[in-house]
């Protein structure tokens, strides 16, 4: 649909601007334009059918109460006000998601930068360390979650280990206090991906900068903050944005680690925005309410992305300032 709307003004404007020469080429130009629209039609159909259409539908559904079996009931903004003012579980899931995203993403980045900086020195066995750090990131999330579920079971290896030291380990995944830290620890297993990226960025930093810094008497700490760090800020920034967007959408780990048939975890302690959305939509058939949660999630992600870009001007350093 949208192509007709977009094409019309452009098509009308162009001949006027280009004058005669354009009209002589127009048959060829029209053929080229035809092929352009033909070739992008897979994307265009997908865009209209799987994205734009569903988005519009989602707005509408979020303004109704609908179980998909009976006709939808128009309720206006009720779903949104209910989420924001009446539903304690929504606020809990919002808090949990923030807690998770705002700890796990910076933590993963700090570990990544730290490891990359250590490996960037002339270290023996660098390749071995790199492999050990990177290999876990190739393990699919579901498999990693399985290992964690097993390790953190009440009578699992971790508590056995703690038992050797006479410690009585908590029931990690069944405890409202420990399930979020467990999820955060799991997320740090992804730090290897950032490490390898950061390491290749650090390799690209000219050696002369370090030599100059050394002559000026800069120690390792100072060299890191004055030479290395500014050069890798674009990569850190990129990983921060992508990491935050991903973390706000956390779902699979929670679903797998949560005790049987209880997506929200003990006392909703691991209820995230997407798990709540999933539960409302596919367990309770509250499609209207779930759609409202989806839009609230979108707003949260948008706000954080905008904040990140705003602050980026202050700390992200682009050498060429072109990108």
């Amino acid at each position, binding site marked *: 649909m949208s192509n007709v709307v977009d094409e019309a003004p452009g098509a009308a404007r162009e001949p006027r601007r280009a004058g005669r020469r354009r009209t002589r080429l127009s048959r060829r130009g029209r053929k080229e334009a035809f092929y352009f629209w033909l070739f992008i039609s897979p994307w265009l159909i997908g865009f209209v059918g799987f994205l734009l259409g569903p988005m519009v539908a989602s707005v509408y559904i979020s303004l109704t109460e609908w179980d998909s079996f009976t006709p939808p009931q128009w309720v206006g903004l009720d779903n949104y006000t209910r989420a924001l003012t009446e539903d304690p579980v929504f606020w809990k899931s919002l808090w949990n998601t923030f807690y998770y995203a705002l700890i796990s993403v910076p933590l993963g980045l700090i570990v990544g930068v730290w490891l990359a900086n250590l490996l960037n020195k002339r270290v023996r066995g660098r390749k071995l360390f790199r492999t050990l750090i990177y290999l876990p990131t190739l393990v699919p999330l579901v498999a990693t979650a399985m290992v964690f579920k097993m*390790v953190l079971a009440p009578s699992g290896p971790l508590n056995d280990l703690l038992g050797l030291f006479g410690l009585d380990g908590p029931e990690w995944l069944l405890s409202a206090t420990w399930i979020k830290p467990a999820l955060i620890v799991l997320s740090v297993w992804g730090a290897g991906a950032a490490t390898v990226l950061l390491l290749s960025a650090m390799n690209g930093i000219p050696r002369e900068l370090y030599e100059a810094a050394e002559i000026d008497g800069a120690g390792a700490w100072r060299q890191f903050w004055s030479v290395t760090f500014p050069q890798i800020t674009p990569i850190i920034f990129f*990983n921060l944005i992508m990491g935050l967007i991903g973390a706000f959408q956390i779902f699979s780990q929670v679903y797998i680690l949560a005790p049987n048939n209880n997506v929200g975890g003990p006392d909703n302690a691991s209820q995230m925005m997407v798990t709540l959305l999933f539960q409302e939509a596919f367990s309770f058939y509250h499609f209207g309410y779930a759609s409202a949660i989806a839009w609230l999630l979108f707003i949260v992600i948008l706000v954080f992305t905008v904040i990140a870009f705003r602050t980026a001007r202050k700390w992200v350093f682009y050498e060429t300032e072109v990108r």
Partner: protein
Amino acid sequence: MAIAPQAAAPGPAAEADRKGRRDDGDAAKRTLSAFKASPATYAVLIVVSALLFVPFVLMVSISLASDQTSAENAFTIIPGEFEWSNFADVFTATGLPVGRFVLNSVLIATLSAVGQVLSSSLVGYAFARLRAPGKGVMFMIVLATMMIPAQITMIPQFLLFKELGWVNTYLPLIVPNFFSNAFNVFLVRQFVSRLPSELDEAAQVDGLGYFGVYRRIILPMMWPILTAIAIFTLTFAWGDFMGPLIYLNSEESMPLALGLQYMTSTSNAMQLPPWNLVMVGSIILTLPMIAIYYLGQKYLYEMNLQGGSAGVK
């Protein structure tokens, strides 16, 4: 800080690096001296990389544990038993069609990758080479759609596919891939824009049509980026959990990622899941990803350089 001595003594270590494995005795001595020069750096590296690697080792170790060890939860980090038969038992002893799970995963992942490669190469080519009024606007839309989280469209898409009778088939997981996705279109478009345009202009003079140029000139040059896209799509579809969870509910149609979860949750609350077999399943889920990464490493690395950087998972 611990790092300081390391920076100060680059000479011998670097030299040893270059010499590599040729003289092991010498290398061992150098390793020892490098370690002595900055024990803290190595201690940290060894501890942290070990911590990161432990779950991986644990997965292997448990997959080789006997049923009894598994039932008693008496695992060791380093493999103590070697029950290789677990790798056969996983297909027969769980009461679930695990062979089918694997087949389903292969089918979904492969077809998804084929769909993405075909569609995004054509769409990306059009955005890079063909001129048409409205193209700029369309490309802006492509970029804008990258920002929309999947959850927004999840529910209406589900209702749409339910209406089409596609629930409990692979179609909802595969078909959208044949309509390309914004990120892949963007990657192809950037890649093709950097190719010299003399070749396809010459081919056009020689009478090739637009599709001919795509098929015979551009497509053969695109394979590094298409390999990368295939790897991204395979990795995503292979490990995807939420999509199958929404759309597939019969055992026969589940891919492995979902089937594994099913394997751990079928037992009742008091019963322990067969952890050794679950870990075998996890290894089966992991191995293709490691293989694909090592085979495609080169292209992924190039893509990282070109795209600035790739995301964290």
